[in-house]
């Protein structure tokens, strides 16, 4: 009986050794392309590096300058506007659509495919297309005028108060399909017998939605909310870049776009890295706060 045990031990040791060998390239790959750049960003945020010449350490001067810069506060405010308006829109729309599709409306499969279609389009392409749609003399305004709604035919991209909601709506149109799928996956895991019992008790659609569906997919909803919060800080660049260039003034400039401007237009890499660190910290804090609301520990599974 001793022989098989020794053999099994040798087998597992060998497996572990080979496992490490096979994993090694991936680990090296991750270290080289992810961990080192991330650590570099933190280090470079303490420098005045211009991307070319020697690196001079300047302590926390970049952060000090950023926090004294009025532009930074306007930019971070814009991000929070996107978060507070965008997150509910980007969460509620797919939730409602998923609930409708799950309730078995006619042509649910067709709609599921159609709703997913915009997600395959490049966001920069969407930005350019919608920019021309919503131009002062664009087709949307022409349509509004044609139906007598002249007062709505405004310069949509002419101020932050209209262009930010517009970008939020476009992002919603472009991305709600994938969030709908996530919600549908969550809904499909709910035991059918619960709905059957509720039906027997005479519960209507709204009651079932609020009393069964919503609580049962709470974890999924939290997951989508966190994704949307992160998106409001990290997925706006293409839309802002193609539609408004962050303007007028800094009305629609967001952190990602400011980091790009500082690094690649002004050659202030150290400053841009400091902005990136701040963005990282902000997202981390918000995500941690949101996670703390989530009492259940198993939702990630």
């Amino acid at each position, binding site marked *: 009986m001793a022989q098989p045990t020794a053999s099994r031990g040798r087998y597992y040791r060998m497996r572990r050794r080979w496992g490490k060998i*096979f994993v090694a390239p991936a680990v090296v790959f991750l270290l080289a392309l992810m961990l080192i750049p991330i650590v570099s960003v933190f280090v470079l945020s303490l420098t005045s590096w*211009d991307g070319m010449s020697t690196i001079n350490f300047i302590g926390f001067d970049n952060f000090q300058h950023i926090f004294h810069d*009025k532009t930074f506060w306007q930019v971070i405010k814009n991000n929070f506007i996107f978060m507070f308006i965008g997150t509910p829109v980007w969460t509620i729309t797919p939730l409602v659509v998923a609930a409708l599709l799950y309730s078995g409306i006619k042509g649910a499969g067709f709609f599921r495919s159609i709703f997913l279609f915009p997600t395959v389009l490049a966001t920069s392409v969407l930005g350019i297309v919608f920019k021309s749609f919503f*131009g*002062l003399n664009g087709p949307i305004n022409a349509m509004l005028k044609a139906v007598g709604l002249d007062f709505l035919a405004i*310069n949509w*991209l002419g101020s932050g108060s209209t262009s930010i909601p517009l970008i939020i709506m476009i992002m919603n149109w472009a991305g709600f399909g994938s969030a709908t799928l996530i919600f549908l996956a969550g809904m499909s895991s709910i035991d059918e017998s619960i709905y059957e019992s509720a039906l027997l008790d005479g519960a209507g659609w709204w009651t079932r939605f609020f009393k069964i569906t919503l609580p049962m997919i709470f974890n999924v909803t939290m997951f989508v909310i966190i994704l949307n919060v992160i998106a409001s800080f990290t997925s706006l660049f293409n839309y802002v870049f193609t539609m408004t260039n962050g303007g007028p*003034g800094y009305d629609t400039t967001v952190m990602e776009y400011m980091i790009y401007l500082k690094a690649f*237009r002004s050659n202030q890499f150290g400053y841009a890295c400091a902005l990136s660190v701040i963005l990282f910290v902000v997202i981390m804090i918000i995500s941690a706060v949101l996670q703390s609301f989530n009492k259940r520990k198993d939702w990630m599974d």
Partner: protein
Amino acid sequence: MLKAKRIFALAAALMMCGTMAACGGGANTKDTSGSSNGAKTKLVFWNGSYKTVDDNGVIPSEDLIFNKTIKAFEEANNCEIEVVDQTADNLYTLFRSAGVAANGPDIAFLWAGGYTNDYRDFIEPLDSYFTEDELSGFASLDICRADFKPDGALLGVPTDVTTINIFYNKDAFEQAGLPRDAQFKTIDELKDACRKLTDAGITPFAIIDGNGYASAWNVGATCATIYGPEGIFELLPGKSDLTGPKFTEAVTRWVNFGKEISENNWANEDWLTTTADDVFMQLYTGQTAMRFGGSWDCGNLYNELGDNVGTMALPSYDISDEYSDYIVGQIANNLVVTNYSKNKDLAVEFVKACTSEEFFLKRYEQEGQLPSTVNMDISSLENLNPVLADCYRLFSENKNVIGYDSITSADAGAESYRQFPQMISGAISIEEGIKQIQEKNVAVSTADTNE
């Protein structure tokens, strides 16, 4: 079976390592010498403007002056020139990366002024390669020198120049009772023309200023008349404060005129926020009479309007200004040789071939780019765009001043593009806007010490 699996897995791991190694090396510009083993010397040229194919299909590729020059140079010097076309968006990021790695082009086409200065760590000073006589034909060469100083190192050799102009539809002018060959010398004449055009039912201007460029051209024009060709260098980072009276005066003049444009509906309603160039369609149809632009617009305008397009310099706001008849005219681009090139001498020779008088004339004819040397005889050229000829005449008067945004830091220039339209719309005061621009007018390398 298990052994075969192991061998297969090991091979897969090795392939992955190999792929990573391959990704790290083998850049197409690595070997720029090539002559050590008897092969032809290779020069890598990063092209940002020269035509290698005629978009209209009229001129065969082999007849394009850049291609012809390459061919002749390769034959004369037993070398090979690899042309890599780069878009403006990518060029500077790639040039920086290549410079840090000391593994990039031998010659590159860069915007003159601040951009070239920003990347001078990777650029070979060219003074020792050129005689005074060879450089004497270039106007306003200081923009190609380190820190724009007359005694600064020569960083690049000019390839073309630009002027800032007003372009107009002659038919629209005639319809409003204005002369077809109008040349407004003062802002009052221009405003008077705007009133006449409005009375005739024609919108005076088609403007896109969502990117702030039209504002920048106009502020540049007023700066030119206030500062003059030498004084403009006061705007260099760390020199005079932009919140001072001169720059404030230049900005105020344009902002006030901009406000008049808005209040009197002298331009398209969304001119301060739009970046869509479809507004220029109305200029082609005569519904709008004028636009701001530069010599780079001549080709398109002549294609659309033919002999019906006219041009003039931006009028002066105050003829008592010391430099009231000066215009914004400057070297736009230059060719640089990298300091890590293994074939600097040969690279410089090619730069000389691309900046010869014959090259300039042919390129002017084929590509519509103004030569960077003044007073060349262009009368012999065929199919010459007359609007472009007018621009060259303006430039050859040698009353040129560099645009302010080529002097200030890139950050300050970008900030001004944002703030000028905001000042005109009233979203921010002139003083506050200039203060924000001044805060950005800091040399990048000294940011930490000045802030």
